[in-house]
């Protein structure tokens, strides 16, 4: 029980306070913005689901800027970490969509070949 409690204190203080000493908002901000650029490059803007997470990422970066201005570093860091992971998720979704589209295109080509095969077969 004692161990659990001390672990909790450590975790709570790390999550909310002491990590500020290791990662500062400026570093995290650069990281989050890079993730957003990555999502844009992956085509996240063109799929509604990916675009939604990209927007969440951008909104949270904007929110973080307000927190930074108000010197609320903890809140800023939280928002920036969320922004980063949302942008990463947007990348994953955009990549999946691209691969699925490629597969669909290939299937449509097969269907076209099949139609042609039947037509030629009928002529023969």
């Amino acid at each position, binding site marked *: 029980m004692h161990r659990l409690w001390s672990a909790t204190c450590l*975790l709570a203080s790390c999550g909310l306070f002491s990590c500020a000493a290791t990662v500062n908002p400026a570093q995290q901000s650069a990281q989050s913005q890079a993730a957003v650029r990555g999502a844009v490059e992956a085509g996240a803007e063109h799929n509604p689901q990916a675009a939604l997470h990209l927007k969440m990422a951008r909104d949270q970066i904007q929110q973080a800027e307000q927190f930074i201005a108000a010197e609320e570093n903890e809140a800023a860091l939280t928002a920036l970490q*969320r922004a980063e992971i949302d942008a990463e*998720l947007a990348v994953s979704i955009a990549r999946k969509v691209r*691969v699925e589209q490629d597969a669909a*295109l290939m299937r449509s080509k097969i*269907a076209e070949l*099949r139609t042609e095969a039947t037509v030629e077969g009928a002529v023969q």
Partner: protein
Amino acid sequence: MKAVSPLVWTIVGAGTVLACSVTQPSAELVDARQAYLRAMESPAAQHEQDELLAAKQALQKAEEAYEGDPGSRSEKHLAYLAERRAQMAEQRGLTTAAEQDQMKTKAEYDALEKQMRKQTEQRLEKSREALGRTTSALAAVQAQLGQAGGKNAELEEKKRQLLAEKENLEKSLAVKGTELEAEREARIKAEKTAAAALASLDKFAQVKADDDETIITLNGSVLFETGKSKLLPAAEERLRAVARALKQQKNRTIQIAGHTDSRGATQMNEKLSLDRAKSVREFLVSHGVKPGMIEAVGRGEAQPVAENGTAEGRANNRRVEIIVRKGT
């Protein structure tokens, strides 16, 4: 510790009033648990075990925060990260599954192509055999004619027929041998360029390809100003790319469908969506797409793809769809 105490007091205070609510996990944690379960049941379980492990560890952190300090900001934050981690594992699993599907489909395509080529060769072989039979029949008739002293009218007629047949077979063989192959190669090449052209558009737009239709969705906000149907300069580059891809499509019909969100009067929205579709059509026609194969329709607010209750949803609903279908 000092900083944690106010939080603890808040929880104790709330606990005396609402004993149960304190121990309830946050909505974020509930979502994270569900996302993890979903990821476990997705193809990620088979393809992305590392990702799934990372998601599990993230969820454990959130669970620990919940056990130690229920309802804390830390719990909610860690749960948010855990939910995303699980969603990412799920998406990556789906990606790997789709990649494998694509490889399988590619193999199927190659096999089908090979089979078709083999069939063509078999048909050529049959034609050659038929020619061989006709040629020997012709030789036999000529031999008989020689014996009859060249005076048998019936045999003469048969000879003429066989000669004509031989000529026809030779002609058709030549056609099959050259044109068929050339045609097939040209078709494969054209198909490849056309498909690649449509696929390349996904840099500019959302492209959804089905067996017999491809839908290219362009977001309204990049094409038009609010309430206007005149194209924005920024839209032109995208539409030029669309025009380039559409010009390569043969035997297709193209429908341009305008859509709006639900704000404003229904009739106004119908008119606006039609005007916008017409603007896009005009642009495409002026950039080389045949006017006969392309029509513009206005769908107004009737076919939303997202919630009209949020700004994000409304933005997705304001769109122009370019639907490319097979047929004349």
